[in-house]
């Protein structure tokens, strides 16, 4: 047993020490920082001034931050509806006994393994291009003049364009989660239902959907975790530093802490830390609500 103890410690130590260094300690420190007035992120602790919830009240009275939270909420809600419904549809089609399932599944998941910078560039510089873009060419070919002239990246359309491009990249991942959930439902259940005279739509409504509750929860959690970290797409789709159409809290925090540091984006690490705490609280709230309202324990399969 003594031997085991030494082994447990030597085997676990590197992972646990790294975990404490990269996660545990920084999380506690960020939490602390959010209650202090700190200008530069590298300022020593002696220069911190305790201001209670001052950073939080400052944030919520800043209209740019409020805009970024609204944008994030829109991405989470609209994007969530788009991604969840399309990925579920694709998952249902893929598990309906279609030929070439593996091929289709692999192609739909493909955008997830591609560098997001590369993917976003393809959308920005090709699909939405006002000169040689895919959408423009498509509408020209079918003779819909007014649609082919739309500037997809102007201020009016930018957010929608960003959302569609982002969702396209995310659908494959959620499709896989749905598919694995559907495949875990015993086919005998469907056979029994067919014998009892239930048609396909009824089977989907009364069997597949209720049995997928737990998978839905996983999907929402994963979607929320990735939405909160929404940064790169926003940065690529905005032409100026603080673009109100596409700004998200993460971008706001980045400009506040690491930004150019002029009068518009005055450095404020305390506020940056508070943004992090707010986003983490959002994830926790969504997670708690999901666990409260979606109960999957009664339907083990």
């Amino acid at each position, binding site marked *: 047993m003594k*031997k*085991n103890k030494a*082994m*447990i410690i*030597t*085997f*676990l130590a*590197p*992972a*646990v020490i*790294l*975990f404490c*260094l*990269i*996660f*545990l300690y*920084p*999380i506690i420190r*960020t939490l602390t*920082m959010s209650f202090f007035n700190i200008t530069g992120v*590298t300022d020593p602790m002696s220069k911190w001034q305790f201001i209670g919830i001052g950073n939080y009240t400052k944030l919520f009275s800043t209209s740019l931050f409020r805009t970024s939270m609204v944008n994030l909420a829109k991405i989470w809600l609209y994007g969530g509806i788009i991604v969840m419904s399309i990925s579920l549809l*694709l998952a249902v*089609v893929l598990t*309906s*006994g279609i030929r070439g399932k*593996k091929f*289709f599944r*692999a*192609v*739909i*998941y*493909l955008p997830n*393994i*591609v560098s*997001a*910078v*590369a993917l976003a*560039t*393809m959308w920005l*510089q*090709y*699909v939405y291009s006002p000169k*040689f873009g895919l959408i423009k060419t498509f509408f020209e070919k079918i003779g819909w003049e007014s649609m082919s002239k739309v500037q997809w990246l102007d201020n009016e359309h930018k957010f929608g364009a960003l959302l569609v491009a982002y969702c396209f990249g995310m659908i494959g991942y959620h499709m*896989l*989660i749905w*598919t*694995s959930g559907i495949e875990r439902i015993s086919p005998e259940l469907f056979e029994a239902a067919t014998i009892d005279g239930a048609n396909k739509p009824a089977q989907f409504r009364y069997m597949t959907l209720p049995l997928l509750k737990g998978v839905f929860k*996983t999907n929402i959690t*994963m979607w929320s*975790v990735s939405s*909160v*970290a929404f*940064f790169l797409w926003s*940065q*690529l789709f905005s032409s100026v530093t603080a673009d109100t159409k596409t700004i998200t809290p*993460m971008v706001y925090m980045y400009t506040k802490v*690491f930004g150019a540091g002029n009068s518009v984006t005055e450095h404020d690490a305390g506020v*940056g830390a508070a943004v*992090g705490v707010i986003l*983490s609280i959002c994830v926790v709230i969504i997670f708690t609500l999901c666990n409260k309202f979606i109960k999957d324990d009664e339907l083990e399969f």
Partner: protein
Amino acid sequence: MAKEKKEYKKINWKTEAKLTPGYIILIVWVLFTVVLLGWVFAASFSTTKEIYQGNALKFATGFHFENYAKAWSGGNVSTFFTNSLVYSAVSCVLLILICAPAAYILSRFTFLGNKAIQTGFVSAMGVPVIMVVLPLFSMISAMGVLNNIFANKILLIFLYVGINIPYTTIFLLTFFSNISKTYEEAAAIDGCPPTKTFWKIMFPMAQSGLATVTIFNFINIWNEYFLSLIFANSDKLKPVAVGLYGMINSMKYTGDWAGMFAAVIIVFLPTFILYIFLSEKIIGGVTGGIKG
């Protein structure tokens, strides 16, 4: 195998007809993806002028491989590419060496704190990076590492490893708990010490799990953006994702669209090629990691 082939030949037209709407949805989706990637690929062999005229697919002036040559040497892509390759490869090896033993211990031994460590790791997977990045930055800049290229590279690898520890450990933990305990029991009876048992018996047995998680880590680290943006300041340090972002911004001004698409393809190819050969394993791994 023979049975599968038999099933394949049998086409029931009635059921196929019922599935038509499904086929249409999938084919439209695939078509769009193919057009998107195919066009960018074609444009990377074209010239900026042809792209603007809408003739990117005609190759009137032949294939322009020089776009790649230009992007590779002129646009620093070779540096970014090597950096990414080194970061990803070294981090993947370190992650396995650190996480496999930890996952094994967590899956096999009951001791005080086991559950707490597991809960900590699982929660860490949901923590936004923004929660950890500020203190890391102040710690690291206090160490003065950011002024030395070599030290900074080590630091980046250290960060990539650290940030992926929870995911890798939890993934392998599920994998180890599915391996039967009888092997260790047999080894113990034969007098093999537990540490040796792990490296000689369990580690090789977990090969397929180790391979899957390494593929994921490789793709994640290859595509990592936010940490690299903050901690890799010089062009000599940047991995492809951050490097490409800078190139795209500068090419907007130089107007070299063909070169930009070539750079996009260079960044895109490594994970794409990996995916062509390993898509089944990758897809199996996505859902395997979540279930546990």
